[in-house]
């Protein structure tokens, strides 16, 4: 099998225009005859469902939460990038493109990224028109700030709640279409399988989480916008419900899974406080604009931070990276935090933390300005830790935050299964091996508002659809498989809870496939994951029944998929014998400890195909070509 990414020929600046012109259109009168399924209601899903509804398609949108407004996009704090160049500081579409290719450590497709940078400006305009209350200057213009990894101010924000406001904009657009009867919203429902008929994605099997009932939904195309798989690590900044079940079951039906080992560790999270910890809380990266990161120079220095004199502090990012300082990209900031903690210079009870200090910024700008910029984040920090960051430096530590890997898609955002489109964090497409701050919201909305409404139309206009209904053999066999899995989980009645397994799985991954990885460690992890997975299917206990709201059962199904995904993640990490972006293999580093890429052998997308439960997955490579941004060793010094 070879992969055709369907990248338009010709200059990159014209690629998207050309692709759009080459697309076939669906006659307006025929649009309502096409049923479409959107799974997920976050930025990508809600914006896609709303936009497709506006065009006149007949859309069903699913989410597992009680309302589409709960999707985890809502928790994004910092902002959304766009190439507007309002501040006149040298920003351009080309620079946003360039920074994203380089930030992703040359492991993403140039054409996709260029399109993303182009569309970024339309997103801001669209959101303003919807009434998203972006931050403004006194004179009434939109405000920008700089954000991790960027030397220009290209980030738009709404206090520390940008994700919330963008999601509510998309949610409201979605509800408008629900009112117009073009979209049917189906909440509290989880996708458990995909229905493939004659090689085309033709529907899904869903389970109502309140009644336990299975339903079959048939459509002409299926769009997955179900987010990332960071929760495979158990402790992450993802919402507790975020899961990989939809994309994983699509993978098992033939969609390829690309670059699973590209996971992002966010440098600024509140450190773990105890064994009961259920998730990690992110502190927006925007804090690094004004906060200075340091640890004591002395190992095991237990003095309170204000008693450590200036000369005995190590502002290690400013020291090692004088030109970017505290604003180095996420992977670099995270790895350095781990390094100083490994040296025994970490702070806090556990020694796994570094200081993020605002005293200098407060002295320079005044507490009022700092409160205006970060007030809600400081409040949140204080609520959780009982420490006042206006007086005492924050303690932060890296945590799993985002997954760049996901289902493989071509330029049209279509997976290897015709009719299956994948958007947002669920696909692998735009961020390479490391995502820059404030780019996730941009990609989700770009895919949903401005790309998939065109590309789905092209697919519908160029394909024929055999008549399929709910009684089709493929649909019924998919229901039976999903039902069997639920029955099996309920019947094991072992001794350990789902969470205890998930926690242990997460620890294996964090230890061997987290911020630093080795071939030996990954081998060990794969073995341990298999052993634990076997135990899971023998010894897990899921109380209750399958015919009412059963949150343990929901989790049990998701964790079962996480076990399989965890193994693929480690296989991919083991296979990629280089360091790049968030994937840091200790064997491959420069003399001063930076990631060492191997472009000669690894300049490709690793797309994995499922070959059965006990068979090794098949690796299919999509070579990456760089015609515009020449691969170089990233340097932020």
């Amino acid at each position, binding site marked *: 099998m070879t992969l055709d990414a369907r990248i338009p020929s010709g200059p990159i600046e014209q690629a998207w225009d050309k692709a759009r012109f080459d697309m076939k259109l669906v006659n307006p009168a025929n649009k309502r005859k096409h049923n479409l399924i959107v799974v997920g209601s976050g930025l990508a899903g809600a914006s896609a469902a709303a936009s497709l509804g*506006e065009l006149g398609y007949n859309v069903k949108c699913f989410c597992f939460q009680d309302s589409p407004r709960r999707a985890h996009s*809502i928790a994004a704090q910092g902002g959304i990038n766009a190439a507007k160049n309002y501040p006149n500081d040298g920003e351009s579409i080309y620079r946003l493109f360039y920074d994203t290719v380089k930030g992703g450590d040359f492991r993403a497709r140039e054409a996709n990224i260029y399109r993303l940078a182009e569309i970024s400006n339309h997103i801001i305009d669209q959101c303003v028109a919807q009434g998203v209350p972006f931050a403004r200057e006194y004179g009434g213009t939109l405000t920008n700030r700089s954000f991790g990894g960027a030397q220009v101010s290209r980030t738009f924000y709404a206090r520390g709640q940008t994700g919330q406001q963008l999601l509510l904009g998309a949610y409201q657009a979605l509800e408008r279409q629900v009112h117009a009867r073009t979209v049917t919203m189906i909440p509290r429902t989880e996708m458990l399988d995909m229905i493939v008929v004659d090689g085309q994605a033709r529907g899904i099997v869903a389970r109502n989480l309140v009644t336990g009932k299975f339903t079959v939904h048939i459509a002409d195309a299926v769009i997955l916008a179900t987010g990332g798989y960071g929760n495979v690590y158990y402790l992450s900044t993802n919402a507790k419900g975020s899961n990989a079940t939809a994309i994983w079951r699509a993978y098992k039906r033939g969609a390829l899974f690309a670059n699973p080992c590209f996971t992002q560790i966010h440098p600024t999270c509140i450190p773990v406080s105890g064994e009961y910890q259920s998730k990690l809380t992110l502190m927006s990266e925007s804090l690094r604009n004004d906060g200075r990161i340091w640890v004591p120079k002395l190992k095991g220095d237990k003095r309170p931070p204000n008693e450590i004199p200036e000369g005995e502090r190590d502002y290690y990012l400013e020291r090692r990276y004088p030109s970017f300082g505290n604003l180095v990209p996420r992977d670099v900031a995270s790895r350095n935090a781990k390094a100083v903690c490994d040296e025994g210079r970490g702070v806090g009870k556990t020694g796994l933390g570094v200081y993020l200090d605002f005293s200098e910024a407060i002295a320079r700008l005044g507490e009022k300005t700092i409160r205006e910029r970060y007030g809600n984040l400081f409040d*949140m920090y204080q609520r959780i830790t009982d420490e006042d960051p206006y007086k005492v430096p924050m303690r932060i530590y890296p945590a799993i935050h985002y997954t760049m890997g996901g289902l493989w898609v071509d330029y049209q955002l279509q997976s290897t299964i015709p009719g299956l489109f994948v958007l947002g964090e669920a696909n692998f497409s735009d961020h390479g091996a490391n995502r820059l701050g404030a780019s996730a919201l941009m990609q989700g909305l770009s895919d949903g508002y401005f790309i998939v409404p065109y590309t789905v139309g092209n697919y519908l206009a160029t394909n024929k659809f055999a008549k399929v209904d709910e009684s089709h053999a493929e649909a019924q066999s998919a229901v039976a498989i999903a039902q069997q899995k639920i029955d099996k989980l309920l019947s094991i009645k072992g001794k350990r809870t789902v969470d205890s397994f998930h926690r242990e799985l997460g620890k294996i991954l964090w230890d061997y496939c987290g911020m630093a990885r080795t071939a030996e460690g990954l081998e060990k992890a794969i073995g341990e994951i298999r052993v634990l997975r076997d135990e899971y299917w023998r010894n897990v206990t899921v109380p209750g029944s399958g015919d009412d709201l059963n949150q343990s059962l929901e989790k049990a199904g998701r964790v079962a998929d996480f076990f399989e995904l965890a193994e693929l993640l480690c296989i991919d990490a083991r296979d990629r014998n280089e360091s790049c972006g968030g994937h840091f293999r200790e064997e491959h580093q420069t003399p001063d400890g930076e990631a060492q890429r191997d472009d000669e052998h690894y300049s490709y997308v690793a797309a994995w195909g499922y070959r059965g439960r006990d068979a090794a997955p098949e690796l299919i490579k999509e070579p990456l070509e760089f015609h515009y941004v020449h691969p170089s060793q990233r340097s932020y010094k």
Partner: protein
Amino acid sequence: MKLKLKIWRQKNCKEKGKFVQYAVDNVDPEMSMLECLDVLNESLIERGEEPVAFEHDCREGICGSCGFMINGVAHGPERATTVCQLTMRHFKDGDELAIEPWRSVAFPLVKDLVVDRSAFDHIIEAGGYISVSTGNAQDGNTLLIGKDTADKAMDAAACIGCGACVAACPNASAALFTGAKIAHLGTLPQGKPERDRRALSMVSQMNVEAFGNCTNIGECTGVCPKEIPLEVIATMNRDYLLASCKKREDIATDISPVIELAAKG
């Protein structure tokens, strides 16, 4: 520390519920209220009992999924804090906490502490948006919006739709929730063209759902995790009154609350 939790258990809205008392002995002051329930649930599952069902997702106080009454107060004793961010250091050893779901006819019970808040979605569906389709919107800076206006809109837009306002209100009114959206959109110039229509349709939808009337008691804003100001209710009432005075029949006949959906609940 050790806590006694008296938790409302109810299999579904058809069966009767009751308080069941549980002792949790290993409560760490650093853990959140939800993590305390996690610890309880793990021990229940290990004993072969069904865990307490409660809604939760982001656990960062922004998705609006979580929420229940603690000793009669929505989201518990800390101001501007959802239960996912309420740390146990606010309680002391030996405390007894009565935990029960939001109580409102408009929020039918699903199970234990989980209620159905789809009435909120219906209110937004009725008109809580600016009618602009995806396409070539004008440049974001074409419309100048003063910082004070943008900030005021943002204050109202911060609502997370958790439903604490309804649970705290003696009338079970959704005025703070509805008012917040009307104020957010009506404050901005983009939202002005539909201001009359929005107020009329959202308020009429609110009345169709089984919410009570607002009598300006103010419990809602007191428990609101985002401290949405009571002022938004005044804005809603003013917009509704002005729109009603205009007697625009074309608008009035056009407004049809989503009754069949509301009836389904």
